[in-house]
């Protein structure tokens, strides 16, 4: 251990005392290797049985720009974002001034004291934890790249001492992380020990911010939504993924690739039971999925705003010619290039009605990583059953951040629903097969795969107007019949789409409606408002078109708060348009600053609405 003196900060600040309930924010420079170190911290907290939610707030950049990793630790399980920072790991000189401002009075700032902290950065009411990270690494590691990387590991080691993280958990995590690269295990553990020892030698450890083992994570996993989607595609029977790289959707295909390499290699021949095509653009990506879907294989593409915009024409073709496919839209901030690495639920309207003419698409809204897995698997059944595109609407918040959720389960008795597909034998028994005949009066016609029967069942698929037998027509009445049948099909769709999740109806006068990633903040909102005597029923919508129960829920409440993560209240608009809901009954709360809406934001908006509310009705108690 080198003799290094910590920079004195000579403060006697009142320290905050918090156990299992605080926010640690890491401010780093993109590309400095901080991500895996910070992740190690979050996962240690998870392994200690304490609810935790890490969030990456990163730039659209490879190296050099600021990046933050926010870790909220909450014994109560409040895992949304919280703006108050209790402990800052200040590793970025570009942002340190602003970062320090975010720390609450009595909070802590860990910084690299190899360089003297500028006077301007000294706040009287926070505690400083100076550690000469650079000097320690310079002394201990000969390799320049390692010197940089291990600064991150050293501060994790220090955090273990400061916060009382079980050191064994950290070392076991290093072993897990570098399995197969054993050479790296020892230096990493050494770096952890350096930080740990330095903290013990120079500070009173632990701090008054502390972690205490808990048992809240039994039966839970810590997973990000995109990984869950990719795995869901493997379980759902997808064989073809065609895509164009686009943040924040890229890791969907990375995950599919990873699990296919492990689970989809034929043991006898070593050959692949899957194909991944990195297409030349998103147009080709969705075209490939359509060609595969038409020919009877399960295919998907994953993208985000700009890519989904490019896919519009093909979505119209698939809707009108009735070809199944699954599109995962991991939404990011638009319009245009927008903020590529920030989150939004801004594509609701553009996806519900994607493409020109009267089109409408099935949308699914997963709210947890577990639902990302489940709805990914379901989406292929739904697309096959309804012979139409299914768009799974995730977002960057849910897709790229790890969240705690229940373990994934697969029912081994489940058989894929390939929908109405005729075999050669079935075709032989049919006198007049017509591709678009509504035989069952449910709007869903029967399809055949190319090559099924030598004499029967062939048809010509087209995006131009066609009759019930798939023949070209410019007869307006025949066209209208097909369009009406498609509308009927969307009524039938409700039989196959997940119902909204409605909280125990306490028959409150107030309700709250939301989708997707908003879900993670709801419990905190309910508990905090409950303390103020305000109770709400909640409804988490899982699919579009909306079930009848969606309208019933809103009708049964005097006022319903509709939470949107976009400027234009798109969920509210869609509810108004599609469920014939009186707009007056809906109160819009929206956030569109690129990060997840906070519980505080929703609470404030609801409280603000109250005076008006009391004028018009007796709500609330």
């Amino acid at each position, binding site marked *: 251990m080198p003799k290094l003196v910590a920079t004195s900060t000579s403060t006697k600040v009142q320290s905050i005392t918090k156990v299992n309930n605080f926010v640690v924010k890491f401010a780093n420079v993109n590309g400095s290797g901080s991500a895996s170190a910070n992740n190690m911290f979050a996962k240690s907290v998870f392994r200690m049985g304490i609810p935790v939610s890490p969030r990456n707030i990163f730039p659209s950049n490879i190296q050099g720009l600021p990046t933050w990793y926010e870790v909220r630790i909450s014994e109560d399980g409040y895992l949304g974002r919280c703006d108050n920072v209790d402990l800052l790991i200040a590793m970025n000189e570009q942002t340190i001034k602003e970062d320090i401002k975010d720390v609450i009075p009595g909070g802590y700032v860990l910084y690299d004291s190899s360089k003297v902290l500028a006077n301007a950065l000294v706040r009287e009411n926070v505690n400083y934890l100076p550690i000469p990270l650079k000097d320690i690494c310079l002394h201990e590691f000969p390799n320049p790249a390692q010197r940089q990387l291990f600064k991150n590991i050293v501060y994790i080691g220090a955090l273990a001492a400061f916060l009382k993280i079980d050191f064994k958990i950290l070392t076991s995590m290093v072993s897990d992380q570098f399995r197969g690269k054993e050479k790296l295990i020892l230096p990493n553990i050494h770096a952890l020990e350096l930080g740990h020892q330095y903290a013990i030698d120079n500070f009173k450890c632990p701090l008054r911010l502390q972690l205490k083992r808990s048992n809240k994570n039994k039966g839970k996993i810590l997973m990000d939504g995109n990984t869950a989607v990719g795995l869901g595609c493997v*379980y759902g029977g997808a064989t073809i993924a065609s895509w164009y790289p686009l943040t924040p959707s890229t890791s969907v295909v990375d995950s599919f690739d990873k699990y296919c390499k492990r689970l989809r290699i034929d043991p006898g021949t070593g050959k692949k039971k899957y194909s991944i095509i990195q297409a030349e653009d998103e147009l080709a990506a969705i075209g490939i999925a359509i060609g595969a879907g038409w020919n009877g294989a399960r295919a998907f593409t994953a993208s985000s705003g700009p890519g989904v915009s490019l896919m519009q024409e093909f979505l119209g073709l698939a809707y009108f010619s009735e070809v199944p496919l699954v599109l995962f839209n991991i939404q990011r901030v638009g319009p245009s290039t927008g903020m590529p690495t920030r989150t939004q639920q801004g594509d609701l309207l553009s996806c519900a009605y994607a493409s020109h003419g009267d089109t409408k698409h099935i949308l699914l809204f997963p709210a947890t990583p577990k639902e990302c897995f489940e709805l990914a698997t379901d989406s292929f059944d739904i697309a096959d059953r309804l012979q139409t595109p299914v768009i799974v609407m995730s977002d960057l918040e849910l897709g790229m951040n790890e969240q705690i959720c229940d373990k994934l389960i697969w029912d081994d008795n489940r058989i894929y629903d390939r929908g109405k597909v005729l075999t050669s034998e079935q075709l032989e028994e049919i006198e007049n097969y017509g591709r678009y005949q509504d035989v069952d009066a449910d709007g869903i016609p029967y399809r055949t795969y190319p090559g099924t029967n030598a004499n029967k069942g062939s048809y010509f*698929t087209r995006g131009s107007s066609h009759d019930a037998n798939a023949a070209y027509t410019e007869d307006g009445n025949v066209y209208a019949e097909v369009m009406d049948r498609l509308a009927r099909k969307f009524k039938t769709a409700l039989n196959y789409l997940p119902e909204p999740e409605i909280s125990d109806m306490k028959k409150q006068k107030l309700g709250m409606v939301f989708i997707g990633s908003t879900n993670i903040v709801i419990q905190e909102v309910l508990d905090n408002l409950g303390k103020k005597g305000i109770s709400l029923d909640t409804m988490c919508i899982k699919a579009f078109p909306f079930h009848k129960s969606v309208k019933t829920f809103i009708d049964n409440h005097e006022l319903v708060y509709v939470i949107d993560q976009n400027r234009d209240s798109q969920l509210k608009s869609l509810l108004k348009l599609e469920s014939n809901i009186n707009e007056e009954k809906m109160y819009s709360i929206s956030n569109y600053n690129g990060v997840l809406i906070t519980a505080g934001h929703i609470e404030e908006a609801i409280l603000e609405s109250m005076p008006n509310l009391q004028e018009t009705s007796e709500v609330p108690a």
Partner: protein
Amino acid sequence: MSYINKPKFKHPQLQTNELGLTRRDYEGTLTTLCAGCGHDSISAAIIQAAADMALEPHKVAKISGIGCSSKIPSYFLSKSHGFNTVHGRMPSVATGANLANKELAYIGISGDGDSASIGLGQFCHIVRRRINMLYIVANNGTYGLTKGQLSATADLGSKTKTGEESLYDNIDLANLAIELGASFVARSFSGDKQQLIPLIQAGLNHKGFAFIDIISPCVTFNNTDYSTHGYKNTWENYIALSEIDFVPMRKEITTSYSAGKAKEITLHDGSVIHLHKTSGKYDPYDKENALHHINKHKKQGKIATGLLYINQSTSDLHELQDTVDKPFNTLGNHDLCPGNEVLIDINETFR
């Protein structure tokens, strides 16, 4: 254009092929193209080619983009599934279809607007990906359905019916296909059945990406004396690098050729192409030579046709990706789903 239903009558003495099918069994619906359209000759050539080689109609999938050219799949092989997709995007749909079932024969039909303008990107990438298919471009140098605008394959100086002159160099799709790694590249003329039918047959039997650029005059908008894609210019400047015969694997080779007069190419399935030299020594295995020939003739205002290039030692996409033998669209739960026990293990990696 015809507006009556096509009669289903078949003459009882029509010749049948090995599958017991007649030429009529390979036809499609009645054409809606203009009388004399080159594209109808292409349909006829495909029908003849498929019937002669006894292709099972339902084992073929026909995929096209948008435009006059892309209507062609309606007019042949009505027992095959067809897919008329969106403008310029046939290659991606064909790629997906091919991935889903490697056992069908795929015929992609496109036009010069579809492949050389709006779909040039997709054209390039399907060539790179080596999809096992026959890709035909019905090339008339003009946009027929929108009434005669110049297309990107129109040669510099070529004029349309309204006198509009092409100010830009053309895109030569055959050149491009050779450059990008297509393993079978030919050029032909809708008016030359003798050459076109065996080329189609060879292209269908070639394992890998086979491309045929077919000059197919637009009689309504681009058949002037000043158009390089009209009948007059094509007949006058048409040079066949070789004459071609196609002998399917099942047929006994009865014609004999004296040594040195014909080049024999045996395709993967055992069928054979014979190339009879007509204009000097032409080696279709030589990529640089092929490009040289095309460009040399072009400079002289001539159109080099025939089998321009062939390479039988490349792999198709399925081989490159090492996919299983069974078509993806026949795989079910048992083949694809890892089951709950595996999921229990996966859960542990997220603890």
